[in-house]
Every structure is written in structure tokens, then in C-alpha cells.
């Protein structure tokens, strides 16, 4: 049972109404409960209950894997774990084998058991982070709201964590498979979660005979072309037009897939299963010869705002102007499905097309809290900031510095294209600032 309170992304110092939700979880070694990250997202209070026990025990979140949608809970109350044998992880189940799901769909007091077969195993978008594609297993066992976090069992071992369905598709549920769960547990073993690495390589299929000839691949049967290299780290090790022949122990096919445990899945899987900072051995075809490259891989969190976040939004308020980063959560909350292509481009695409002009953290003027000092501002909300007092705004700290270091009589706030602007009289805004915070009951003018 979770009492949760998501932030108000437009008014980031405050929170939405308290909601009640429920999910499932299971006990693993070390007196820990595993569940989904989204089950405990924005939780103010988490209560857990054992099967056939009416008592509720307070639990707290120890670790959250935003990208892999997993979380670990602990319960301090004496006796909660008494007499319980923790579940152990099994292997990746075979396609067409039978699995059983356990959980509390739609709440309920009794465990619900369903069975189904493993329909397929491949890379899928994880809906809750929204920006990651990781290994997932599709099953026809019923997975409904409330099942999230529950174990999927085969031969008395956990072979997955139920986590999402696809609206509109019947008999289709997904669970997080053992390799991803193991990765998460291994990651947190050092006391912090870093995340699943991402390659930052555009890996392109290499079917066309002419392209294979061009790359000198006449004697090779597999291999995928390396296209755009998106970070300096990979640019230091690889080149566009390199051909990836093998990643770790897995040969790479022409369609950029590897045969992983009998399942043809995209080679990016191997990167995602490494730990942050690991080095993956690659066999590369470059200039008509095969070479070995050790590629370090990282869980780059600098672009996390392109996915849903589970931490309170950063903000800064000055003179009633509320600045907060543009994020997937903000975009969804403020605009639903009607976000402008300009903001969508800034959030999701610019870093790939124009990396030189990409901002670390695009900043929005989320709101203007009405006060005589700012009453004449033309823009009142939901507009991206280009610069303040001539300083290009790359991140929230730039806003603070530009405003707090200003010695001019006016603050000039320039918005993103078409570059209209507003002017705020500095002295009036300085004077009004404390009163505005009091009026709108804002305890802190910033959360950084």
C-alpha cells in the first residue's frame, strides 16, 4: 500500500493531492523486498503486508533503479521477515515455457495467481522511465495494475518481475527478466545505483551487398555498421564506418542483433547488461582488417531529464518568476500530448542533430506568481528561456548566477525563438521577492 504525492511540475515547490496506490513485491535474500520503481514513485508512506497477515508494516525505499524500473524496500519492524524463505532468482526462461505470476492486481486481500507462456524475449521500451529500451519478456499471463512488482515464477524460482502491459493489446503483459534484475542487484551491491550503460552508438544494419563491399566485408557473413557516434567517449575508441563483428563473446549479425540465450536481440543488450565503467571487448572491422577494441561503457545520467524522473524537480524562484528544468515529466504535465515541436526537439532531438548548441538542462519559465513587481510581464508561463541578462542559460544554476550577479537596473529575460523578451526592474523585484514567497507560502526559493 503506497500513499504517494507527485510534484506539481508547474509549481515545483508544491505537491499534488495525496493518492493511494498498491502494487506487489517479493522478498529476496538479505531481508529485502523487490518491487518496481514506479510502484513506490513519489511515495510519502509505504506500508507492506504479508500474505495471510492483516498487519501493515512501514517500509522504506533503499534503492531505486529509474531506468530498469526496479526498487528495493526494507522493513525495520521486528518479525516481518520471520519464517519467510526468500525467493531466489532463476535463469532466463525459454520461449514457450510456462510461467506463473503472483500479485495483487487491483489491490485485493488475496494473492492472485495466473499462468501463461513466455511469448517472446526482446528489447522493449520500459514505459515508466520512457527513455530506455532494455530486455523484457512478453507473456500471455494476465498482468494488470497492482501486479506490478510481483514475481513471475518458474520451477520455484523468480524468472521475472511483472511491470507493464500495453493498453489495447489483449493477453499481453511484460516482465523484467533475470539478467536485468541481476544487473540491478549487482549494481547496488556497492551501496549506490549507477544504472544500465548505454552505448551512444548508432548501430546500423548491414545487409546491402554494395555497402558490405564498400566496407571490405566480402569474407565476413555478419557485422553491423557503426554510424553516428554520439559522445566523445565512443568517438575516442570507434569511428564511423567501423563494423562491429563481435561484442564480448557474442558475434553480431547483419541486423545488429546477437543470439543471446537462444533469442535474437539487439546488440545494445550486451552494453546494457554491463556495469557502469565496465569495459567491453569488441571485434571491429576497420580498413580491411579485424582489430580489437576495449570500449568503456557508462550509465550516462546527464540526459536523464529525457526520461521520467522520480525525484523532486529542481527550481528557482525570483521576483515571482518560477524557473524549472524542461523534462519529460514537465512536458507531459504541462502540455499533455500537445507540446510544441520546439520543446520536443529541445528535449529529445537537439543533442543528436546539433550537439554544439545543446543545453545541458533547458530551463522553462514555468509560471509567474502575480505581484505588482511582475504584473506587466508579457509572458506568464510555460516558455523556454534563451538567456538572462545576456547570459545563455544552459542549466538552472546559470539562471541563479545571471540574476544574482546582475548589477544593472533591469533583468532582461529573453525567451527561446522567436526571441521575444521581458524586462524586470531589478530593485522592485529584489524588494518584492520575500513578500512573494510569503504570499504564495513558498518555504524555499530554490531546490537544487
Amino acid at each position, binding site marked *: 500500500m503506497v500513499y504517494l504525492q507527485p510534484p506539481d511540475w508547474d509549481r515545483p515547490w508544491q505537491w499534488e493531492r495525496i493518492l493511494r496506490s498498491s502494487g506487489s513485491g517479493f522478498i529476496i535474500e538479505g531481508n529485502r523486498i523487490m518491487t518496481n520503481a514506479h510502484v513506490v514513485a513519489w511515495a510519502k508512506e509505504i506500508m507492506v503486508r504479508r500474505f495471510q497477515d492483516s498487519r501493515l508494516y512501514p517500509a522504506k525505499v533503499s534503492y531505486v533503479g529509474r531506468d530498469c524500473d526496479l526498487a528495493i524496500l526494507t522493513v525495520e519492524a521486528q518479525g516481518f521477515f520471520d519464517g519467510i524463505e526468500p525467493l531466489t532468482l532463476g535463469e532466463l526462461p525459454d520461449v514457450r515455457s510456462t510461467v506463473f505470476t503472483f500479485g495483487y492486481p487491483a489491490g485485493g486481500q488475496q494473492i492472485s495467481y495466473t499462468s501463461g507462456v513466455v511469448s517472446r524475449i526482446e528489447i522493449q521500451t520500459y514505459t515508466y522511465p520512457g527513455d530506455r529500451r532494455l530486455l523484457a519478456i512478453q507473456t500471455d499471463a494476465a498482468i494488470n495494475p497492482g501486479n506490478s512488482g510481483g514475481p513471475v515464477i518458474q520451477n520455484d524460482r523468480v524468472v521475472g518481475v511483472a511491470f507493464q502491459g500495453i493498453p489495447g493489446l489483449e493477453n499481453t503483459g511484460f516482465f523484467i527478466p533475470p539478467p536485468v534484475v541481476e544487473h540491478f542487484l549487482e549494481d547496488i551491491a556497492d551501496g549506490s545505483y549507477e544504472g544500465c550503460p548505454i552505448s551512444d552508438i548508432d548501430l546500423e544494419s548491414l545487409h546491402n*551487398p554494395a555497402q558490405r563491399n564498400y566496407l571490405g566485408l566480402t569474407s565476413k557473413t555478419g557485422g553491423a555498421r557503426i554510424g553516428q557516434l554520439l559522445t566523445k567517449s565512443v568517438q575516442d575508441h570507434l569511428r564511423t564506418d567501423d563494423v562491429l563483428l563481435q561484442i564480448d563473446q557474442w558475434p553480431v549479425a547483419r541486423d545488429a542483433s546477437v543470439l543471446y540465450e537462444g533469442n535474437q536481440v539487439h546488440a545494445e543488450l550486451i552494453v546494457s547488461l554491463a556495469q557502469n565503467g565496465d569495459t567491453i571487448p569488441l571485434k571491429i572491422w576497420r580498413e580491411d582488417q579485424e582489430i580489437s577494441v576495449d570500449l568503456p561503457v557508462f550509465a550516462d545520467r546527464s540526459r536523464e531529464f529525457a526520461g521520467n524522473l522520480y525525484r523532486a524537480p529542481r527550481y528557482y524562484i525570483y521576483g515571482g518568476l518560477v524557473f524549472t528544468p524542461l523534462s519529460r515529466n514537465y512536458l507531459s504535465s504541462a502540455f499533455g500530448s500537445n507540446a510544441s515541436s520546439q520543446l520536443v526537439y529541445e528535449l529529445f532531438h537537439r543533442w543528436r*542533430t546539433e550537439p554544439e548548441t545543446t543545453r545541458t538542462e533547458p530551463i522553462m519559465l514555468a509560471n509567474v506568481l502575480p505581484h505588482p513587481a511582475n504584473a506587466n510581464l508579457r509572458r506568464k508561463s510555460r516558455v523556454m528561456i534563451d538567456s538572462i541578462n545576456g547570459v545563455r542559460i544552459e542549466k538552472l544554476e546559470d539562471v541563479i548566477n545571471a540574476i544574482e550577479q546582475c548589477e544593472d537596473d533591469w533583468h532582461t529575460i529573453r525567451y527561446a525563438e522567436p526571441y521575444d*523578451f521581458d524586462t524586470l526592474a531589478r530593485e522592485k523585484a529584489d524588494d518584492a521577492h520575500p513578500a512573494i514567497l510569503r504570499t504564495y507560502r513558498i518555504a524555499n526559493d530554490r531546490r537544487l
Partner: protein
Amino acid sequence: MIPKTAILSLLLSLFFLSPGTAAAADWENSLVRIEATRHTYDYFQPWIRRSATSRNSGLVVGEKTILTTAQRMENNVLTRLQKGGQGEWTIGRLVWIDYYSNLALLTVDDEAFWEDLHPATLAEKIPNSGTAQSVRWHERRLELRELDIDRMKISKGRLANIDMLYLELDFETGSFDRSEIIAIDDEVVGIAIARYSSSSGEKVQAIPSTFIRSVLQAQSESDWSGLGFFNFFWQTTENEATLDQLGLSGPARGVIITQLLSLPGHPDVLRPKDILLKIDGFSIDSQGDYQDPDYGPLNLEYLATRNRWAGDQVPMSVWRDGKAHQITFTLPKFGYENFLIPPARYDSTPEYYVAGGLIFQPISGGLIDGLGRERMPVRIIRHLSKMRPEANRELVVLSGVLPDPFNEGYRSHNNLIVARINHHSITRFSDLEKAFADPQDGFHLIEFTPGNPIDKIVLNASGMDLATRRVMFRYGIQNNPVINN
């Protein structure tokens, strides 16, 4: 092609401009029906040409001259006209069309058609309120319906993203025809171009007769150079602190230039942060309105088309660096070609270049709408409304692939923006021919801009011609490439 001399001779003979000759309301003998057949194109397969037929209203406005809107008159194949609301259709022809003003003129060569037809009068003034009538042929009879004049309003056109003056009327129920005539008593006050819903009910938008008169007069006097526009963005000045900062004391007035849309060959006489105080002698208020002598407060954008044409010199007064300056702004011509992605291309077949099954096209509004705007990736949509950085600059895409053994592995690719072919930069569609004529070591190398799902395609140069011929045969492509230059 329509000979210009023919246009002028027709227009010079118009007599609607002389109020004294206005005929009494005789709609039966001045209103005709137009049936226009046009080519339409499928941008998935741009070599395919289909046709569509639609019916509009037309208004006799002068000797052997019929006025209608430009909508549905593009790519014209056949035009027929009918008088009296029923009976025989007579072949007509388009003598002049302007998509930006959304007006077209037609004539009929058959002398018998003109018997009993009389020009209608285009009103010189339009009231801001009151009642008007819509007039159309409907089910073989002349139908007149009442509408309330709501207001004169500056808004975007239907065929061009240009701010112009429109007559807006309240309309209750029923169907409404494109080009339907709006009249008061015996004078035409507008031609309808659209019906739409707003928060205050159903509306009809019409091109006002005053604008039509000025366009046709400019045409008749060989003075027509097209519509001009203000190639800058501006903001209102209700924020007094901004005016203080820019040193303009006194009551809030004028608007502030925020961004100039530079056009090749057009000097930028304005600067960002100029306060635009007067245009053409009219003072601009802090909301961007001026006091129009005929219609009261109107948005300043109208001053680009209010008896002004492209190339005209417009005096402006601006506040810059703490003092007033008088400048002369030359109105640039509004044209689809000003934009990096031309919003439309009429009266020409879509361009395409099929190479080994790969279909290349210049990006245009037609392509985006044809392939589905909602399916277009943001990497393309974001270029909409950008001006061309230099003359003839175009974006070229690999719009799709026609499956053939030659292009194995590339079939799912579409909407990829081309950067280079065989190391030649592709900055306009006509660059393709030269680029493909220069293969590199036996290969064609097609590179795409950063951010596309793939960055390069390689094809065998030696097999390209054969593959292209095979693809043309299999997919029924008669002409390739089509480059309009």
C-alpha cells in the same frame, strides 16, 4: 501558361471600379457556377497524377471576366462554367491566379455564354456591423441567406501564411460553399473562403471587396508586384520596464522588434530592440494596433497589404538608441519560395529523383501533408517556417524506397534529410544529377544529416542505371527524374 497581355487587356476593360456604373442586384445574371478539375499528386508516388473536381461560385466582375477564389483552382486541367444554376456547362479558362491573395480570374471564349450576364459591383466600403446576405446557386435555384457581420479581422490566409484583412460573419446553420458571394443590398462585400467554428459560434471568413478591388486595380494598371509582408517578429510593449530600459518615456506605445527574418537580397533596415512607432503614417499602439480610418483598430500586419504591394517603400518611425529615426522599409515579396520548406508548390508537378529505387524529393508543405504531418519526424517539422538562408536553398529527403534487390537493406528508410551525395553537398534538388554523375570508386555514397536514424547509404554505381530502369518498369514510372529547376 497565361499570356500577360491577355490578362491586362481583360483587366483594363473591367468597369466595376466605377461606382457610377454599378448595376442593380441581378444575381441570376452575374453569379455563375464553376466546375474545376485539377491534378492531384500522391507524394508517396510522386509520379502518379490523379484528378479531382470541385465546384465553386464565380462572379462576373467585368467584360468577359469572372472572379473566384484560388482555392481548388490550382493545377487546373479543365474549367467549365454554368449560368442560371442549371443546364449546359461551357468550357472556360483560367486567365489569372494568385494564391497569396487567393483570387483567380476566368473567362469563356464562347460568346453565347455572355449573353444576359452583367458584372456585379464590388463595394467600396464595408460596414463593421449589420446584416449581409450570402448568395449562391443551390439545387437549381438562387439561394439568399442572411448573415450578421461580426467584424473585420486580420488573420492568416487559407493558402498562404500571410496576415491579411478578412471579413468575418456569423453563420448559423447549413452548408456553405467555397467562393460563395457575400452581399449587402446590390453590392458584393466579399467572397467566402472558409467556414469554421470558434468559441463564439460558426463563422464565415471572406475576402473583403475592398481588398479585391485594390488587387484587381493594381493588376489592371500593370502595378501588380505581388503581396508584400513584414519579415520581422515583434512584441507588444505593455511591460513598462522594457520601455524604460529602451529609454522611451511617456505612455506605452509602439511594438518592439524581436527577430528579423533575413531574406536573400533584402536589406535589413530594422534591428532587434527597435521600437516601431509608426508605419505608413499610422501610429502603432502598445498592443500592435493602429487606428484604421475605415475599420477602427486593426493589427499592424495589415499595413503590409493595405494598398501596398511587394517592393513598395513604407515609411517607418522607430525608436533606436534613445532617439527617433525615420527609415524606409521596402516590402519584400511574400512567396512560398521564401521558406526553407515551401508551404506549397502549385501549377507544377512534384519533383522527384528515383535512383536504384531510392526516391528523393525536395521537402515542401505538399510533401509533408501528403505523407502525413503527424508521421513527419521532428527533425523535419522543426524547419517549418524557417526562411531560406540563401536563394534556392532546399532540403532534400530520401522520402522512401521502392523495393528492389539493388536496394536490399534500405527498404524501411524514409524521411531522411540528405547532406551529401558522393561528397557533393546537396543544397538544392537540382544538385542530385551532378552528384550522382560523380560516383566514388565505383560506389554512390549518400550521406544524411546528423540525427537521422542512419547516416549513410552505399550503392553500387555500376548497377544503378539498370536498377533504376527496372524499378521504373516495375512501378510504372514513366518520367525520371523530374526536376523543375
